C-alpha cells in the first residue's frame, strides 16, 4: 500500500490536531512526556491507523528492516548484556 493509497481528504481529526497544536496542545508536560513531542499527535489524532500502515508491501527497500547493524559495537571489558540489560559483571 502506498502513502497515496492511504490518503484521503484532510480528516476532521487531523484538523483537530492542527488546531490543538496551534492552541498550545504541545504543552510542556505533554512535550516532555511525549518523546520529542510527537505523541501528542499520535494520541490525539484518529489518523494513527492511517499513518501507521505505510510500509510499501513487497518493495525491496522494506526488506532492509532485517539488516544487521554494520559496525560492531563491542562492550568494554567487564560489561555484559543480559536480556537487553547493560550490566557491569559485578551485578551478576
Amino acid at each position, binding site marked *: 500500500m502506498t502513502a497515496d493509497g492511504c490518503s484521503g481528504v484532510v480528516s476532521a481529526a487531523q484538523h483537530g490536531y492542527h488546531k490543538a497544536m496551534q492552541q498550545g496542545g504541545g504543552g510542556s508536560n505533554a512535550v516532555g512526556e511525549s518523546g520529542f513531542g*510527537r505523541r501528542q499527535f499520535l494520541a490525539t489524532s484518529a489518523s494513527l491507523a492511517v499513518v501507521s500502515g505505510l510500509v510499501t508491501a513487497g518493495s525491496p527497500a522494506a526488506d532492509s528492516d532485517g539488516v544487521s547493524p554494520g559496525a560492531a*559495537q563491542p562492550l568494554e571489558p567487564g560489561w555484559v*548484556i543480559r536480556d*537487553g540489560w547493560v550490566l*557491569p559483571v559485578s551485578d551478576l
Partner: protein
Amino acid sequence: MLIDLNAIPKDRVYDLCVIGGGPAGIAVARQVAARGKSVIVLEAGAMEVDERSQQNFRGRVIGNAFFDLEYARIRAFGGSTAHWGGQGRPLDPIDFAAKPWVPEATWPIDRAAMDPYLRPAMDFLNFKDTYRTEQLGDGMQKMGFKIVNPPPHLGQLHIEEFKASKAITLVLKANLTGLVTDGQKVQSVEVQSYDRERATVHARDFVFAMGGIENSRLLLHFNNSNKGQLVKAPQALGRYWMEHPNFTIGEAVVPAGTEKVRVYGMVPNAMRDARVLNCGIMVHPVPTGSRMRTIARQLACVAPALGSWVYEQMDRQLVCAEQVRAMWEQEPRAVNRVALDAKARDQFGIPQTELHWTLSDMDRATVKAHALRYAQHVARSGQGRVKIFDWVLNGGPLPENDEKISWHHMGGTRMSRSAETGVVDADCKVWGQENLFIAGSSVFPSGGWVNPTLSIVQLALRLGDHLAARPA
C-alpha cells in the same frame, strides 16, 4: 501588503521573489525587506489548513514505514509551524565537519558561519535561553534542549506585519506552476490560484522556500520543463534526502526524583572512535507504577547482585522507571530521494512526489553505539541500569507501533563544494544559475540529530543578509 493573485502588477520587477511562506520564507523575506528591498512572497496555501491546498502534498512512499505525505507538513502561511512542537537546539560543530567514515555527511561551511545567526534565530522563534552542554567525562555529554510553549505559529505571528509592510507584498493561494530560465538566470515564475487565475512574477532574485520535499519536487519538474537548463548537473538533485529516525529504544530503572527530562549523546571524539553519526538520547519518567514493578523484576532476575537493592528501593518507592527514546542522524545516501511520480499529478498537472526512504546499516549502528554508551554511563555513574530493546542490539525489524520518524524533511537540494556533488553552493545559490536560491532544510548536506527549525531560520537569515548585499 496582502494582495490577490490577479492584482500582481504585470510589469513590476521585484528585488526578490520568495516562493513559500513557511519559517524559511518568512525569515528571508523580512531580512531582505528590512534593508529597503522590495519582496513578493508567493504562498500556495491560505491562512488556515485548506483541503484544496493540502491535497497537493499527496505522494507515494517507497521503503520504510513513513507518515502520509499529505499530512506530514502544512501548506499554509506559516508552513509547518502550524503544527510543530517548538523544540530545538543548534546543530553541533561535528555535524558540519568532515567525517571520513561517512564522507557525504559534511558541509562546505562550518558551524562558525551559522553562529552569528543563532541569537536572531532564537529571537525569531521565541527561544529564550542559551544552550548548555555538560561534559560527563566518559564519552558522554548532557545537552540543553529548548522547548518553547506555546510553539509560535509564524503565520499568525507575522500576518499583520506583512499586511502593514510597504516593502513586502504577500500573495496567498498562489501556486507555483511555471518557471522560465535562459540557462543562466531565472526570468520569471508563473503562479495559479485554485480558480485557475494565472499571474507572472518578475524579480531580480528568486528563492525557493517550499519545504524539505517540495523544493526538490518543483526543481525536478522545472528542470524537465526547461530541458535540463535549470540544474545542469542534476546528479544530486532530489537525492541524499534524510529524516531523523525516532523510536523508543529501551527502559531504565533510576532513583526516584531524577530530573524529569534529560538529553544525552556521545561526545564528538567518541563518535569518531565508534565511526558513527550523531544522536540524542532522551529519557523521561514512565507514568505508571505497574510498568516500574515489571521492569524492576526483570532487572532483579538478570542481575542477582542487584536484586535485594531493587526490591528494597521499589518497596520504599525510591526508584522509578524511565522510557529511553532516541532521535538520530541519518546517513545521507543517494538512494534516499525525492523523485517525480510517473503517473500521479497534483491538481496543477505537476507530478506528485515519489519518496524513496530506508534506513542503512550506519543508521542502525549509530543508535546502537549511542544506546550502549548511554547505558554504561548510567550504570557507571550510579544512576541506575538501562535495558536496550532487542531490535536495537541485534538489528531486528523496526517496531511498527512507534513514532518512527520526526517529520523533519532534509536534503534533496544539498549544499556542496561543487556542482557535481550537490545542488546549491555555500551561499545557497543553485549551481549554474545566477539568481536562484534555496532556503530551508533541503539544503542540509547532513542533518545532525536536532529538530531542524532553528537551523533553518539561521540559514534563512544568513541568506537574507547575502541577498540584501547583492548589487542591484
